[in-house]
């Protein structure tokens, strides 16, 4: 196989943002997650928890609560506004001010007709959900103290509201408070501090469950307004609650990073009376658990430590299956790094800015396992702060390193870069075609003469670049009527093909010479997570969220022989069990049979000339191969060369000089930048 020189990069200080809120849509099995920077992410739980959509954040938008109404997603934030999201164009559709100060919580009734908001000024505000907007209907009786949490009774006639030191039950018809449930404060020093009811849940049998800042989970009788049971679960706060759909199980998230499950069971065998019994404690977080979702089979939790954790409930899933293993989602399922392989440059994308780095150079030679002397250190050439309030959603660097572009939901910016020895000139291209305003993905052609930008309805805008200006050429449109955004773009090395993949799982191939659609790859049920076109054979390689690999001949418009062989034999079970998606594919121009791809924990060179690994074959066989004498290696070799030397990978690329670039972001480095794992002080408490 051979030796590689590897640029091991650890200077990308990528820092995920803390998870602030989440909402699970049981119908579509989509989880919406809001982060502290205002970004909203959609994960598809029916397709390997793939992060299918990301709506970038905005400086002024602090999302405090999320709510699905049917397939529409709403958020409320401390800026006092309700936002509905456009999930097709990945941006806010509109915002409406609630005029009640910061919004702490937002909740819809089961019928999906009303939104209830809990506001800082002590009002519960009702908004009617209309086809194209939400409209203010009325305020409930104003209370002293902010409304922190809300929960509708499933019938839609009552609402429980968590406040400071108490829970109020409102009649949703009249807007009058019907009950006042006093929540006890903590003991000792915290006695003097108001207790915050961070979360409430109103069950069909009129049981109200509350979680508060004194560390209690309390069960109330909502009919009489009496306290039934108190579970003291933590010294700190109980921040989040979530109830299963059948209302037989409940989870509570605490500041200690624990998630505690309660189940409605009879405490003595054979007895009819059921009560809420504390059953399990999960500790998968180091910091506050701020958001929870109880799905049919799992508990989903997230918080300060930025990780999204899917913890299956082992009584609900079959043991030893993919479904039964714990998932931690730390990195985004898309690439934040762009590599100019001819120039040896790396572009790092942050929400706030871009960083352009030049790789270092080495001196002399070494044998495998050696570190070479770094002659020239890597250098940060440019740090470019974005303009405006909106966060960066995508960015691109041309292979020659001469062009750089980024986009927010509202605008695209293009820069011309010039290198004169040690001086770097950066010029903003002033007049961009007006079509180039809201794009989801950016990509340069390999000769840096064109910029491709994916736009609404899966269309791609093609722009021609020359020394001074850029001109609009064409808009490529698929034949399908899909309204979904394109999340992957790939321009072939020879400049002839452009491949796009959208969140309807469609892959379209355009002929750039003719500027028209060449073909559409047969739709596979799982999301494409990475696509690439081979520079010599013009075969399209696609890897999906379920880890399947396909190779499709663009010339013959059919799957290749190798692809069929792979499908017939099936991928190795260990390959399928990996729980992070492949986010990039590249090829080795020295050896056309090589496909290089990576996920978070490994990179793999697939040698198409070697036999495929069978079920009984050792998949991770590099150690074995290393230990056996050379003549014997061929006997043990198979197509999948997996290297796990580098971990928590954000990027693996092959430069033109055939050296590899790996960008690592060790999770320990992320952990070390988090605040100390103590109770987080939340605003206004």
């Amino acid at each position, binding site marked *: *196989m051979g*030796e590689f020189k590897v640029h091991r990069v650890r200077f990308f200080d990528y820092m995920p943002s803390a998870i602030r809120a989440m909402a699970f849509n049981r119908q579509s099995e989509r989880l919406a997650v809001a982060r502290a920077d205002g970004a909203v992410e959609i994960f598809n739980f029916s397709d390997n928890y793939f992060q299918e959509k990301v709506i970038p954040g905005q400086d002024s938008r602090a999302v405090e609560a999320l709510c699905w109404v049917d397939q529409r997603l709403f958020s409320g934030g401390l800026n006092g506004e309700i936002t509905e999201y456009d999930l097709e164009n990945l941006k806010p559709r509109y915002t409406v001010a609630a005029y009640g100060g910061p919004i702490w919580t937002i909740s819809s009734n089961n019928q999906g007709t009303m939104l209830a908001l809990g506001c800082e000024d002590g009002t519960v505000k009702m908004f009617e959900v209309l086809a194209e907007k939400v409209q203010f209907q009325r305020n409930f009786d104003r209370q002293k103290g902010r409304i922190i949490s809300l929960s509708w009774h499933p019938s839609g006639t009552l609402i429980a509201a968590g406040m400071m030191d108490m829970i109020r039950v409102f009649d949703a018809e009249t807007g009058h408070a019907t009950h006042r449930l006093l929540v006890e404060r903590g003991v000792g020093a915290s006695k003097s501090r108001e207790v915050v009811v961070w979360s409430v849940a109103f069950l069909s049998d009129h049981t109200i469950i509350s979680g508060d800042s004194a560390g209690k989970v309390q069960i109330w009788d909502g009919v009489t307004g009496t306290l039934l049971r108190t579970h003291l679960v933590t010294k700190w706060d109980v921040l989040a609650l979530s109830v299963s759909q059948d209302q037989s199980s409940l989870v509570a998230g605490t500041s200690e990073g624990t998630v505690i499950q309660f189940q409605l069971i009879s405490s003595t065998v054979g007895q009819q009376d059921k009560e809420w019994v504390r059953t399990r404690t999960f500790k998968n977080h180091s910091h506050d658990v701020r958001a929870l979702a109880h799905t049919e089979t799992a508990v989903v939790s997230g918080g300060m430590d930025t990780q999204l954790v899917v913890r299956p409930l082992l009584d609900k899933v079959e043991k030893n299956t993919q479904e039964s293993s714990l998932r931690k989602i730390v990195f985004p399922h898309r690439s934040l790094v762009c590599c100019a392989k001819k120039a040896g440059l790396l572009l790092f994308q942050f929400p706030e800015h871009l960083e352009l780095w030049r790789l270092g150079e080495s001196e002399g030679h070494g044998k*495998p396992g050696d*570190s070479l002397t770094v002659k020239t250190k*890597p250098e940060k050439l440019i740090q470019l702060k974005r303009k405006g309030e909106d966060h960066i959603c995508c960015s691109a660097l041309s292979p020659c390193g001469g062009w750089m572009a980024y986009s927010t939901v509202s605008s695209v910016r293009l820069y011309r870069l010039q290198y004169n020895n040690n001086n770097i000139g950066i010029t903003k291209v002033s007049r961009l075609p007006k079509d180039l305003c809201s794009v989801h993905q950016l990509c340069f052609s390999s000769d840096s003469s064109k910029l491709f930008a994916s736009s609404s309805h899966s269309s791609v805008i093609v722009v021609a670049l020359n020394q001074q200006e850029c001109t609009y050429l064409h808009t490529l449109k698929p034949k399908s009527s899909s309204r979904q955004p394109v999340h992957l773009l790939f321009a072939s090395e020879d400049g002839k093909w452009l491949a796009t993949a959208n969140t309807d799982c469609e892959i379209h191939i355009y002929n750039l010479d003719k500027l028209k659609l060449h073909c559409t790859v047969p739709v596979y049920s799982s999301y494409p997570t990475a696509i690439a076109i081979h520079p010599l054979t013009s075969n399209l390689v696609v890897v999906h969220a379920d880890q399947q690999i396909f190779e499709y001949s663009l010339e013959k418009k059919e799957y290749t022989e190798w692809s069929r062989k792979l499908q017939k034999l099936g991928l190795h079970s260990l390959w399928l069990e990996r729980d992070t998606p492949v986010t990039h594919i590249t090829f080795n121009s020295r050896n056309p049979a090589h496909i290089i791809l990576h996920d978070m924990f490994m990179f793999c060179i697939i040698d198409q000339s070697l036999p495929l690994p069978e079920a009984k074959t050792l998949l991770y066989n590099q150690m074995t191969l290393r230990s056996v004498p050379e003549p014997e290696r061929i006997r043990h070799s198979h197509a999948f060369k997996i290297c796990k030397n580098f971990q928590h990978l954000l990027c693996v690329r092959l430069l033109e000089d055939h050296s590899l670039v790996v960008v690592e972001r060790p999770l320990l480095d992320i952990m070390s930048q988090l605040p100390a794992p103590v109770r987080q002080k939340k605003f206004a408490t």
Partner: protein
Amino acid sequence: MAALYEGYTLCGLVPAQNLSHSGIQGIEQERDSDHVVVTDSTRSVTLYKVSDQKPLGSWTVKQGQSLVCSAVFNSQTKEYVAVSDNRVIRIWKEEDILLDKAFKATVSSDVWRVHCVHGGEPVVLFQRGAVRLLDSLLSAPQQPIEEILVQEEAIRWSTNIVAETQQFVIFTTEQKGDHFLYLQRLNPNTLQRYRLEREEPGLGPLSFSASYRDKHIHLLYLYPNGHVYQSVVSVRGLGTEEGTQALPLPRSLLLSLPVGEGLLEAASAMVLDEAHVAVVGVPHPSAGAGKDFLCIWNTNFQTLQAGKEMAGKIYGQLWCYSNKLFIPHGKTLSVIPFVCPKSSLASALGKLKQAKTEEKAQPSRTVETRKTVCWLTTAPVEDVEKEVEGLLSRSDIQDLQPSVGQLVSVLVSRSLTDPAFYTPSTLAQLVHTQCLCHSVCPDLVLLALEKKDYFLCQLCLQFFPDIPEAVTCACLKAFIRNEVLQTAYSDNFLLPHLKDLSSQHVVLFLQYLQFLYLKYSQDAFPQMHGLRSPSLTQIMDWVCLVLDAHFTVLVMTPEAKGLLLNLHSFVKSQVRLVSELGKIEGSLQELNKMKVNKDVGQYSIEIIELF
């Protein structure tokens, strides 16, 4: 083993001027075992919560009036009953604030005491021996009260006991040196009179204690000569015919407590359970005279189970409520929790056998020891040595401690009084048993010093765990040896005593310490020194202490100058060595760290090989 725990103070006392009386008239249990009513000898009644050491309420009669007896608590009615000015019965509740406004009734005869067992009905005992239930008395307060006692007969002590369902008032009287016991049964009323056997002429019982078990009333009484007798009266055959004729009361000697010289003055013995007796005011057998102890004795084995020195004068008063002893001493009333586990009584059958054989051997030994002790006070030196050797050789080691303690204190006190008498080998032998400590025979070390018996001193220093710092210093003064350095001490207590050493002594001592230190620090094989040599740190600690105590004096003393300079340069070189070692340690640790941190670069270019 019975044990006395760390006590605590319930309240302060105002004892009589001449310390003849504690100032407490009585302590009675209130609503539960944690509440008691304390009646002082003049005017006031105070309710305490024992575990909180806190008074909950207090009631006082007017100036000029006085309380006759201990106030009692009637738990049925939640009322307190007390008697003032001999004839006025007062009844009040906890919420009553002023005693004067509470219920009062004047009766027609002088009252001796009111008794009330917990849960029972109060009973009034009149000075002339008549008994009435409080209720029936109050129904007609002025009813005539008969006289039971004859002229010149007076009540000395009384109590109230419930035996099964029968309530008894028990009291003792004295008439011209004769003592009588009266058993008054209530409902139906019967009275029985017994005559106590006479002890040595002129001796009357110091204290009584009555208990009821196995259908018998057990009366325990202590005489000033240390004898504790028990008399048992069946409650069954009682009072079929009422008669004033006094029956003789059979008694058995339960314990013969050592009283030292003279007779006991203020002492009392109290039954704790069938096998244990608490005794106060009797000297500890091995603690010498002049100390007041509270002890628990096992009456089956006649062994001392636990002892506790009580600071201040003991008044011979003692009360016991549910595993707590209440004892006034000096100017405080202390509460001392205790346990008397039953298991030691060999409740299990297997153990019972063992206990029985022990029981046989034990009294013989104590008797023998007691005999020896008497004999020791007169016998010549050679015989004493022989006798003690014999006693030690034939006895098993178990339970040696009391006898050894007793022997040593006798020998020591004899040696102190009789300058011709000294038995170094015997004492050495006894110290060698390792059953002794300084507190058992406080005079031994000083005696040895006086007799210049350094060998014995050395032994004591080696074996005694509790030598006071003052004595250690006395030893230091007398001779300077290894053993002194090894004894346990506390800086704070030692320092003031060290200051008593003269400067010549200090210089000598420092020289010796320096010699030891140099010898040790040059010696490559410290383990060769053996058990009896002090460790290097012990030497250093002593150097520091001696310097601390005498620094100014030493600076002024010309002959100490060389010594101090030597010590200074020595210490300086040691400090330098340590700091150099510290540097080496630091750099070695740094090396260790570098190895770990090798990979944590921001950027590296590496060669890998895939197969």
